[in-house]
């Protein structure tokens, strides 16, 4: 799931080298914290959060298979 979010974020931003995902693992859920360059935050959020919402949906679908709940946080 970490790799997935990294791949998606790197493809969206202008500075892929500054994309970093840290993982906080719980019993039933995983929190994925997405860090991107300051100028790229808009690229992973989008108008009215469209992109952020899409990222969450995709990560969630992937988490369904592993049986855990995934939470995506965009950190600035």
């Amino acid at each position: 799931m970490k790799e997935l979010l990294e791949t998606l974020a790197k493809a969206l931003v202008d500075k892929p080298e500054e994309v970093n995902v840290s993982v906080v693992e719980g019993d039933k859920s995983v929190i994925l914290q997405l860090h991107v360059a300051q100028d790229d935050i808009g690229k992973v959020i989008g108008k009215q959060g469209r992109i952020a919402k899409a990222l969450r949906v995709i990560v969630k679908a992937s988490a369904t298979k592993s049986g855990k709940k995934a939470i995506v946080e965009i950190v600035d």
Partner: protein
Amino acid sequence: MLDISGTLDKIFEEMGINAKVKSINSVDKDNLMFVNIDGEDMGLIIGNRGQTLNALQLIINIIFGKNPEERKQVILDVDEYKQKKRQKLEDLAEKMAKEAVEKNKPVVLRPMSSFERKIIHLTLQNNEAVETISSGEEPFRKVSIIPKNM
């Protein structure tokens, strides 16, 4: 040519989902590109009310929309569902345009998604006899087909 199928296959693999790009069909006159996906996990790829497929489609269009030269709208499709739907909508548009001209009054279609409305507009954009207008608010926006010489 950008590698859409390579990118999508990589995403599916990292999602841990059994799915692959089977074929890509371009409809050049509408600037659309239908990417047909196949595999065991189609339910997961489509998601509740198509939300996962739509999310993937949005991301792919943003990634590949970056260089404007060969910009096409990518439509992610399963079992050629949307491609068949496109054909049906094209037929519907032609039929309703004919009806509008014969009766000499506007024909209002059922509420449609933006993709569906786009197909109607594109089909009739070069039709001399009618014009098309969308009205109403999402998710109830409808296309009206209006005879030009009314």
